[in-house]
């Protein structure tokens, strides 16, 4: 049996960094103000690893994103922290087109092991760039893997998998979960990219979600437990997506609600709905429902109570598919 302790989500990510930087000299990190720790996951890493492995950069997202590609091509394993994932849009070409496409376009010869990191999420009332969850946009562009944890356990395991991965990975974490606590083993483990996790078993309806919204789904399941048996699947990675896990669940439940904090239009949920349409039509007893951010920019102020997925909205979608 492995020891576990309670860690926050950021502490868990930080532990992954420490483990992997100890294991592998080629791993290093860059970002704006990461040495101090603009977020706690990079705090106090320089005493052990030095400022040459935990590198503060000027504000220049295209350059640091491209530097990750260049350094990876020269044999290193970079982690580039954008701070807020929304800042990575400055490096739109490097992230969406170059990092993701060079391996394939260059004849699938030279692996590009690199990790982009960014925090995101609605609910802190700070609007657009400080909220945008870029996974819908990211997965549209082939060649980059994308994940987001819902627990400290998954955070550490996914980050370790991302760092060991031989392909670009965008690791997202939800800002509101910075201090979420959970048990994390001290022993080495990874949470493989592309493996979903059943966070709660159920038989009537499947709720597919990820990140912070796993908790909304779990709360809803708890609330409705005497009425409807809800299975909550945490996608954990958006790409590769674990369709097998989803379809296995649908075979049992025949009903699906997708809860997605990102913009609804042409996002992750749309893709999964389309896949179910194409490959799982006969499994369904009701059309798939999406609960997403509405198709307008993420406002600041107090409007998030209406724009985020909530227990009420998820409940109503569940009742719809059960009708």
């Amino acid at each position, binding site marked *: 049996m492995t020891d576990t302790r309670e860690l926050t989500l950021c502490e868990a990510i930080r532990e992954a960094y420490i483990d992997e930087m100890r294991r592998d000299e080629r791993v290093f990190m860059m970002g704006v103000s990461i040495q101090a720790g603009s977020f706690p996951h990079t705090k106090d890493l320089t005493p052990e690893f030095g400022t040459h492995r935990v590198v*503060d950069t*000027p504000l220049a997202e295209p350059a640091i994103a491209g530097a990750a590609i260049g350094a990876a091509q020269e044999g290193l394993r970079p982690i580039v922290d954008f701070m807020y994932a*929304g800042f990575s849009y400055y490096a739109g070409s490097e992230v969406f087109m170059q990092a993701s496409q060079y391996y394939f376009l260059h004849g699938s010869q030279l692996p590009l092991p690199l990790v982009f990191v960014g925090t995101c999420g609605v609910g802190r009332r*700070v609007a657009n760039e400080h909220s945008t969850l870029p996974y819908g946009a990211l997965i549209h562009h082939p060649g980059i893997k994308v994940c987001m944890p819902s627990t400290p356990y998954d955070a550490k395991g996914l980050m370790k998998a991302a760092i060991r991965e031989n392909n670009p990975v965008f690791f997202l974490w939800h800002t509101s979960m910075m201090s979420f606590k959970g048990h994390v083993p001290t022993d080495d483990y990874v949470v493989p990219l592309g493996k979903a996790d059943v966070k709660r078993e159920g038989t009537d309806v499947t709720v597919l979600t990820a990140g912070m919204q796993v908790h909304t789904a779990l709360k809803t399941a708890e609330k409705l437990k005497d009425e409807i048996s809800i299975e909550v699947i945490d996608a954990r990675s958006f790409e590769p997506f674990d369709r097998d896990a989803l379809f296995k669940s649908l075979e049992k439940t025949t009903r699906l609600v997708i809860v997605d904090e990102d913009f609804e239009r042409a996002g992750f949920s749309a893709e999964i709905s389309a896949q179910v349409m194409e490959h799982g039509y006969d499994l369904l007893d009701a059309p798939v429902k999406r609960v997403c951010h509405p*198709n307008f920019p993420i406002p600041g*102020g*107090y409007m998030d109570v209406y724009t985020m997925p909530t227990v009420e909205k998820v409940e109503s979608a569940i009742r719809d598919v059960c009708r």
Partner: protein
Amino acid sequence: MQTTAVAAASKRGKASPLTDEQKILLFRNLMLAMALDRMMMRVIRAGRMVGFYHEGGIALAPGVAAGTFLRKEDILWPHYRAHGLAHMLAKGIDVKLYVAEHMGREAGCCKGRSSFHFSFPQDHVFGLSGNIGANFPMVVGYGFAAKYKKTDQVVMNCSGDGSYGEGRAHEALLISALWKLPVVFWLENNGMAQHSGEQDLFPGKEISVLAAGYGIPAMKVDGQDLFACAETALAAIAHTRSGKGPIFIECRTLRAQEHSVGNLNNEGPVKRDQKLMDEWKATRDPLKIAAARLIEEGLLTETVFTEWQAEADKQADAMDEFSEASPKAMPSVEELYTQVYAGKGN
């Protein structure tokens, strides 16, 4: 391709091009800006603000100077520090609407939905952006529009040293120089960006040296000296308004506190020196420096100072009260859906 180091104007005493009225206006603008900054700090500490606040502290003289001499139709991109309140009030903008915006109120200048990424279109102020450096591409558009429309509008483009890391800064400098756009590149250099010190941000000490590469004239000024900043702003505005193209101003200022409320205050892995910052507050406070100068020149007394200060604090508090009195903006999703696109074109 000239780099003029402007001698701190305050040393030139009566030779200043500023009138007494202008000095007093500047001084009272700074007083109000600092009062507002304190009020905003109280509001965020009390948990009544939505979103961030980045304290201005003793770094507000450049913003006041940048704003005070602008005309209504001049375009201002305020530095995001202290959320541009100093710049905007100096330009004559009714900033209580922006205070309300910070509190997510219906009375907010953007209906409480912008966080602090607001806009006052009627005043030719179009934002702040969550992405630092977003000003640079936009000012090319403002400058272009001024030339295109053959107005003599000036674009006052304020931002910090951190923002000059972004490649977008280069693009704006290059195109402004190439097209001789009326843009003042107003750099408020506090030697810090978030938790990084200047040694991690720029290879030299003076960012204004970049300007020469584009053939843009540059001036440096002590950002703690309100009147020096103001004289430089006047010169910069006159330069650009006369069609001579862009100009680069580097105001050297100080960050005497953490980056934003509730944050660390480090330079890289090292905690910043609190004693030094306290010393700055004691000796480099631009309001105190300006007050001493005005007293010396017979334009101010201690009593008047106290009176004005009380007035400024009252004004600031009134903005808080105004905001608190307005309901929290909470339109429904259905209503928000009607707000995505503007109506009919032409």
